[in-house]
């Protein structure tokens, strides 16, 4: 096809890991000595018919990457830390050279690997706009033409003649993104810039990027923010350990693949009572577990729109009407969201506790919690008498991570602040 704007063929990047203990960089003497030593070694090896010696270890940051994009495509690149995303972007923006392979680009590339590249703290906002613009590849005339627009977008009119070292970090980032957002390249390469700034600013950036891509530009976008990828991108590339796992035009399935396949089995979702922590004659709790509706333990990251179930498996020696079984759920900052137990509803609809083994479960409906990591503590008590398992002190505890599947609304694209992110309905009155 001739209308490919980017074509990547068999791309790979190798790094040499040097095994040096003390110095973090090579001194001239080292390399001289190493040269002499390896020369000697090589001659010695030559006699032994073996030429492959090295004190360096090879590391392939990227391997066998292959894709092509047409104008107007928006490619999301997702993967865990160290999967090679940034390396790929750096090669595409010509900062580092590939070791093998070839890329053909038909158009001007602007890369935004960091917000505010080349900003000089001593210079004023006005001066930095010109400087940063030039660094990103704009001409002076172009910057002059867009100057007012950039200033308006950044909301820093009042401080244009103040050195940016006196800026608040928010102003700094806004100004920097404003310059970058007014680039007009055919290909825009963006790395995780949305990770900075407050959520309002993130939203602004995202909508700006959407409008840029609406003009038919090609965007390559790296992010850990799955919602942003889903909203913005038309294709997704999943990287894992430097290899290309999938390239699909179904962003959804790529994200699913990243969320499930990439993660190691999460054993934190199940707690088993191995130490006989409940020393009482009444109840013995076997396990506390996060599972799906069929009772299978959940071992991967949970999507926000899935229901999850909390299972409590316990053995009763005798029935006591004061028994309460439940859990407390905590956010990442240890703040309590709520407690709940099986006796919360009218007495008639309580689950029946019988002498012997019981398994109670309770549903946490989808789209109630926010994205993030949550901790669930077991709660077992005899009403008004004693705690058997008290939540909040970290005795019987499990955790789960929720990522992706936030909401279907076009205006809800990034994680909102707060522990809860319920999707509530609105109607006319």
């Amino acid at each position, binding site marked *: 096809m001739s209308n490919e*704007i980017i074509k990547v063929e068999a791309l790979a990047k190798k*790094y040499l890991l040097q095994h040096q203990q003390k110095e973090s*960089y*090579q*001194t*001239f*003497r080292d*390399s001289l000595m190493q040269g002499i030593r390896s020369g000697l070694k090589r001659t010695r090896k030559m006699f032994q018919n073996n030429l492959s010696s090295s004190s360096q270890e090879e590391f392939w940051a990227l391997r066998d990457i292959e894709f092509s994009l047409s104008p107007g495509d928006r490619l999301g690149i997702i993967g865990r830390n160290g999967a090679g995303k940034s390396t790929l972007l*750096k*090669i*595409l*923006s*010509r*900062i*580092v*050279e*590939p*070791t*093998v*392979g*070839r*890329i*053909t*680009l*038909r*158009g*001007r*590339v602007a*890369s935004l*690997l*960091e917000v505010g*590249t*080349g900003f*000089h703290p*001593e*210079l004023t906002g006005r*001066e930095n706009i*010109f*400087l940063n613009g*030039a*660094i*990103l*590849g704009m*001409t*002076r005339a172009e910057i002059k033409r867009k100057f007012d627009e950039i200033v308006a977008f950044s909301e820093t009119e009042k401080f244009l003649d103040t*050195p940016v070292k006196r800026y608040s970090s928010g102003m700094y980032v806004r100004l920097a993104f404003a310059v970058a957002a007014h680039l007009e390249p*055919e290909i825009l390469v963006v790395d995780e810039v949305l990770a900075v700034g407050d959520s309002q600013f993130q939203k602004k950036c995202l909508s700006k990027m959407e409008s840029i891509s609406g003009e038919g530009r090609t965007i390559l976008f790296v992010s850990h923010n799955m919602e942003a990828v889903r909203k913005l991108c038309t294709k997704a590339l999943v990287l894992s350990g430097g290899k290309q796992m999938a390239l699909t035009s179904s962003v959804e399935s790529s994200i699913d693949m990243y969320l499930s396949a990439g993660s190691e089995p999460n054993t934190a979702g199940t707690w088993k009572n191995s130490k006989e922590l409940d020393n009482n004659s009444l109840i013995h709790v076997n396990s506390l577990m996060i599972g799906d509706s069929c009772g299978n333990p959940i071992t991967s990251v949970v999507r926000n729109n899935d229901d999850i179930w909390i299972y409590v498996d316990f053995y009763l020696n005798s029935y006591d009407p004061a028994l309460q079984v439940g859990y407390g759920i905590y956010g990442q900052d240890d703040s309590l969201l709520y407690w709940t137990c099986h006796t919360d509803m009218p007495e008639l609809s309580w689950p029946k506790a019988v002498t012997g083994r019981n398994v109670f479960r309770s549903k946490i409906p989808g789209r109630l919690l926010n994205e993030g990591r949550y901790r669930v503590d077991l709660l077992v008590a005899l009403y008004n008498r004693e705690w058997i398992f008290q939540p909040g002190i970290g005795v019987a505890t499990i955790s789960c991570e929720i990522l992706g599947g936030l909401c279907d609304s076009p205006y809800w694209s990034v994680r909102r602040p707060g522990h809860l992110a319920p999707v509530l309905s609105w109607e006319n009155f």
Partner: protein
Amino acid sequence: MLTEPIIIESGRSARRYWSDLWQYRELFYCLAWRDILVRYKQTVLGIAWSVLRPLATMVVFTLIFGRLAKMSSGQSPYAIMVFAGLLPWQFFSNAFSDASNSLLNSASLLTKVYFPRVIVPATSVLVSLIDFIISFLLLLFMMVFFRFTPDWKIIFVPFLLIWVFAFTLGCGLLISALTVKYRDFRHVVPFLIQFGLYISPVGFSSAVIPEKWKLLYFTNPMAGIVDSFRYAILNEPLFWPGVGFSFAVSIVMLLLGFKYFRMVESSFADQI
């Protein structure tokens, strides 16, 4: 697409190099402009530093070599003789030391954006021109002060400036590229500059060098450059074979610096 496609391959930056350099000329101006703006921010004396430094050096040299050691300066006043030599020397030493660290100082740029890397050390050399121009104006003032009339040959100064610029650029490119990989050169550069000051005829006239050592003495291109400046400004006699030799060494230096820089340029981002 209207433009010719960009092809990224290992070891293939060469083809578009010059057109890229032309495309990024605005960045070149911008970086130079930034360095000039930033140079004297938050200083009390500001641009006066560019006047004070050569002036103080000149006074010290004149006192030590001219008054105490009683060295000869031909027909011209010793102060002017020294200053004519300081003119290219200070340009070289400032530009060279700035350029050698320039790549390290802009590490954040090198790892985040693409542009022909030559721009960075070249900017440092270019910015040092400001000091040269200030010093040159200072020299003109001194000539008025000493009632010294320069020779018509002073019109050669711009050409000599191109020479010292080219030589400095060559050294700067080589050392800056080496510094990226071997930080040793950060310690080598101040030493080289100090050493160079002693072996170049800056504080004294090259007339004191014995005839049989002269050609060897001019392997140091700065000797040829300093003497040529004195030839143009003070109409001092010139040792032509030596100057020719110096010129040849400078050209080799420029080519060598550029060649080495081009060779290792693509690996800067990985090594810095």
